[in-house]
């Protein structure tokens, strides 16, 4: 089970990569393996506002459907159009070509992108999935 050290994570099994004020978001290897084959990903519209911890899409697999949560507050700037024709990319490379959407993160009082305090480090996320069995 891969948990890249440079990423941050949510308890709902999304990963987030921060680059300046842009957050790239996907679901983790653990989530993808638990779901089985992903057959459809419904993503938020470009330009829409998302809120940390709120559902903004759906991930359909053979056996189940799961809500996709935004890890951050902000505005969606880009979605991974490739997933529409090839949702299996999420299983193949959840941290790479299987990414889902990008958000311009709302700035905090200091003018920097404000990240929610609840995001997990790789070590914390690894611990979470291990304790979940």
């Amino acid at each position, binding site marked *: 089970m891969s948990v890249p050290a440079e990423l941050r994570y949510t308890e709902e099994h999304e990963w987030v990569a921060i680059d300046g004020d842009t957050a790239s978001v996907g679901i983790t290897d653990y989530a993808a393996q638990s779901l089985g084959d992903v057959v459809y990903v419904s993503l938020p519209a470009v330009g829409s506002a998302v809120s940390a911890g709120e559902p903004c899409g759906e991930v*359909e697999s053979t056996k*189940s459907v799961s809500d996709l949560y935004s890890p951050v507050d902000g505005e969606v700037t880009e979605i991974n159009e490739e997933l529409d024709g090839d949702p299996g990319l999420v299983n193949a490379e959840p941290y790479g070509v299987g990414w889902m959407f990008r958000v311009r993160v709302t700035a905090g009082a200091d003018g920097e992108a404000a990240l929610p305090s609840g995001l997990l480090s790789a070590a914390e996320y690894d611990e979470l999935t291990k304790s979940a069995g």
Partner: protein
Amino acid sequence: MFVHVTSQPKDTPLRAVHERLGATMTEFAGWLMPLRYGSETAEHLAVRSRAALFDLSHMGEIAVTGPAAGEALDYAVCGWPSALAPGRARYTMLCAPDGGVVDDLVIYRQGDDRFLVVANAANTAVVLDELRKRCPGAVVRDETAVTGLIAIQGPNASSLLERVTDLPLDGMRYYAGAYRTVAGCPAWIARTGYTGEDGFEIFCAASDCERVWTGLSGSSADLPAAGLAARDTLRLEAGMPLYGNELGPDVTPYEAGLGRVVRLDKPGDFVGRDALAARAAEGPRRTLIGLVARSRRVPRHGYAVLSQTGRRVGVVTSGAPSPTLGTPIAMAYVETGATRPFGIDVRGKTEPADVTELPFYDRRKQR
């Protein structure tokens, strides 16, 4: 759809094999079973295009034996087992006195005085109990723990099985079975399955299970294992009912479109006869239909089926993305007389779906 129990799940005789193959295991009806080995979609498509192996050792095997076994079963189930010739099998049901389905079964006549009743894993105990009550003139024995069941399913099943069995498969009829050997182990080999493809189910001693499995999987470089996830989408595409979804104590065989299995024409009484005869005469109150979604959002078990005016007219019993069709499919019960078009309430948003003939997939029409 998975049944959760609190006690320790039972292992099939093939647990070590599944672990070596890296299977994702799941608890199902009290058993620890392989859900998938890799991609369940690839496993599904392997069965449709080539062949795959399944461990079905969780299924219940109940032997009903003795000179009066056939007549005893005629009273116990709604089919007509005593009319089966030795070496033949039939799909049938055990019904409650009110006509509701206690379980759906395959009964194999393995000899003049021996029938093998195969029950769903979740229902084995209740079927065993009912058969003991309903068949006082026969010996009813639970052989589940000492029996392994391996299925080989797919268009290549016959040519692959042929390499490791002494049973001539050419010309063997669907729903026929015979005692021979597989990989040198004694087995009951039946041309049955739950995938909509040609295939065989091999019943052997639990202690021989690993030898039979490795003999089969070693017969070809292209015979992958398939798990319960693929088994469920395969049977759904084939329009086959699953107990707990399309069948249950509140459903009669007629509503499930399976009235043909109720043999009101057989002599003598059987459990549920009066209720079933009444149900046959009055016609079904609801109908099992097939739906093909126009949206990519998947209708799932329990979702409401809506009329054009938004009235709830039915419920989805099984739904999944269909690997063969490339679109979500579902079976649903709708009120008799409910008019199309139908929509499905997929988590608060109505998605359009087209009614289609069952099954969704018929191998005789594909090839």
